[in-house]
């Protein structure tokens, strides 16, 4: 991407620097379980201190990929390099990675303290040092007063913190997080997401998170790999993934989006007229560099919040606009989602921020409205 899209969380982008050496490298990894191919010839670089997310629906191979890095599965083909060293044949108990499990996997017969100390004891560290490190970890996750409790005496959020502390206690080179927040309620999850990013920045470790929750991936990570059926569809920053998805799959998976299929009428480049599409009568022009040539079947994708909704016709009605009526309204509090049924039967989703109070909202079911969008609001997808 030439121009930067969306907010930048921190000045950190080793992936754009050709001189930087990847910290973890998945090299042509294939993993088969019998006849099922979980991961299919996948190559991926992750950089030191990066917070990297593997995002995809269940069964897309993201967990398998992480488990191969942890050493619980061996790749059928390909190799995994950590700091340039091949991890093949290294058992999980000798890998410098630690994992936070989806179920937390806290040892129920040990106290919080003992759980956190477990990994340190395996390294045969002196007792004093173990104690000091356990205290440090308890403080980090704010659980000092729960040290002597058993996991069964903790709430879900507290258990999650113990699991995090335990996996961080050994200061792993890479922390693997397997759906770490799945069991928490929404509010706690949001809080914890921000805590996770803070923690990652302060500790300066490399985090790899596996999740099916796109919001979670977008909040915490520097880069996201969107996976489907064992292959990576796109690797990019959260903003790029959202604003410039490279395929229908990614566009549809991340957030809400309108996808309108159509044919390319002409393609003259972004500066000189853009891509012109004919979507069964609806004319769309997009200012975009795009590899499609005339006659190609492509998709036009536009986020609902970029669709403008008006009662009066816009100045330009021939392209990037359509008339219809309000078919359904989803009131979501912070904004409302309008489903507009265009006169050709197509349904377009338009989101309106509820800046005004509900009583002032003039639109209702059956109202005649116009939808339109600017030439750079949407995206032509060839895949």
């Amino acid at each position, binding site marked *: 991407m030439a121009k930067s899209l969306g907010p930048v969380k921190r000045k950190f982008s080793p992936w754009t620097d050709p001189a930087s050496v990847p910290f973890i490298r998945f090299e042509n990894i294939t993993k088969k379980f019998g006849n099922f191919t979980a991961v299919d010839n996948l190559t991926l670089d992750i950089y030191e201190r990066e917070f990297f997310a593997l995002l995809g629906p269940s069964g897309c191979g993201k967990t398998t990929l992480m488990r191969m890095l*942890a*050493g*619980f599965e061996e790749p059928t083909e390909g190799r995994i390099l950590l700091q340039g060293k091949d991890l093949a044949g290294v*058992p*999980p*108990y*000798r*890998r410098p*990675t*630690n*994992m936070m*499990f*989806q*179920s937390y*996997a*806290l*040892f*129920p*017969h040990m106290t919080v303290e003992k759980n956190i100390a*477990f*990994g340190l004891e*395996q*390294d045969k560290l002196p007792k004093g040092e173990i104690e000091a490190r356990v205290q440090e970890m308890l403080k980090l996750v704010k659980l000092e007063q729960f040290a002597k409790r*058993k996991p*069964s*005496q*903790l*709430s879900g959020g*507290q258990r999650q913190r113990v699991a995090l502390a*335990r*996996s961080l206690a*050994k200061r792993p080179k890479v922390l693997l997080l397997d759906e770490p927040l799945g069991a928490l309620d929404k509010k706690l999850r949001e809080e914890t997401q921000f805590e996770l990013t803070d923690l990652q920045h302060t500790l300066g470790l490399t985090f790899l998170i596996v999740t099916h929750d796109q919001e979670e991936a977008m909040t915490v990570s520097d880069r996201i790999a969107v996976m489907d059926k064992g292959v990576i569809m796109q690797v990019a920053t959260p903003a790029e993934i959202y604003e410039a998805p490279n395929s229908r799959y990614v566009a549809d998976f991340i957030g809400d989006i309108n996808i309108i299929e159509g044919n390319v009428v002409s393609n003259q480049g972004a500066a000189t007229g853009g891509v012109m599409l004919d979507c069964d009568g609806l004319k769309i022009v997009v200012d975009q560099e795009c590899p499609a040539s005339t006659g190609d079947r492509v998709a036009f994708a536009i986020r609902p919040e970029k669709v403008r909704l008006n009662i009066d016709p816009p100045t330009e009605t021939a392209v990037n606009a359509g008339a219809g009526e309000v078919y359904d309204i989803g009131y979501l509090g912070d904004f409302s989602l309008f489903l507009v049924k265009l006169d050709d039967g197509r349904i377009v989703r338009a989101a309106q921020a509820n800046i005004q109070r509900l009583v002032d909202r003039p639109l209702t079911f059956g109202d005649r409205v116009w939808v339109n969008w600017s030439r750079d609001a949407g995206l032509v997808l060839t895949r």
Partner: protein
Amino acid sequence: MKNSRFDATVLTLGFAFLYIPIIILVIYSFNASRLVTVWGGFSLTWYREMWSNQGLMDAAWVTARVAVISATIATVLGTLAALTLVRFRKIPGRLLFSGMIYAPLVMPEVITGLSLLLLFVSLNVDRGFWTVIIAHTTFSMCYVAIVVQSRLLTFDRSLEEAALDLGCPPVKTFFRITLPLILPAVLAGWMLAFTLSLDDLVIASFNTGPGATTLPIKIYSQVRLGVTPEINAICTILIGLVALGVIAASIATKRNEVRRQRDEQAAAAG
């Protein structure tokens, strides 16, 4: 209303059917009369008699040792078998093996006893204390395997993975994580093996030799010469021991349950 009365009757009859013989046995163990079926007043004579009956006492001691040793060996072997069957899903013929582990459960004891006897004879092993232990280990092992297997099936393997991930080698992981967590099932298996060994007559009688008469064999042979109230006395003690075991186990379970609930409430309260 009519239905509930019917239920109550059935329940009473059922329990009566189960417990009246036992109650009669217990009552007659305190009988002063030598005749088993005539009540001659309360007395502890037969308990004293039993205590000084060296043959009976020897047999009880043999049984106790056989039961403890065979239950312990069976527990180790049965647990290993269960681990193998649950964990190593790729070994060829696993299904056959797991089916075979159930076979001793349905096999008539006579056949198990006889086949072991033939084995010992063909190997020219003198029958006695250790052959009984081997025989009991053989048949009680499968019970342990089944009890432990069912626990292992619900065992969260991510606990073991977490231990490995934190740098704990596999064998140490078994002793630090797996074994402590499946211990209740292992102990239950041991108890089961112990009880099975304690009251086995058929298999023991095939495989025992001189100097290794177990209590069930002794009781059986004495009864053939006529039931003496001594037998009632020793049976009452056995019943008492078993009842104590059951009560202790259920109190322990109840306590655990109460503690678990209290823990959960404490956790919910923060």
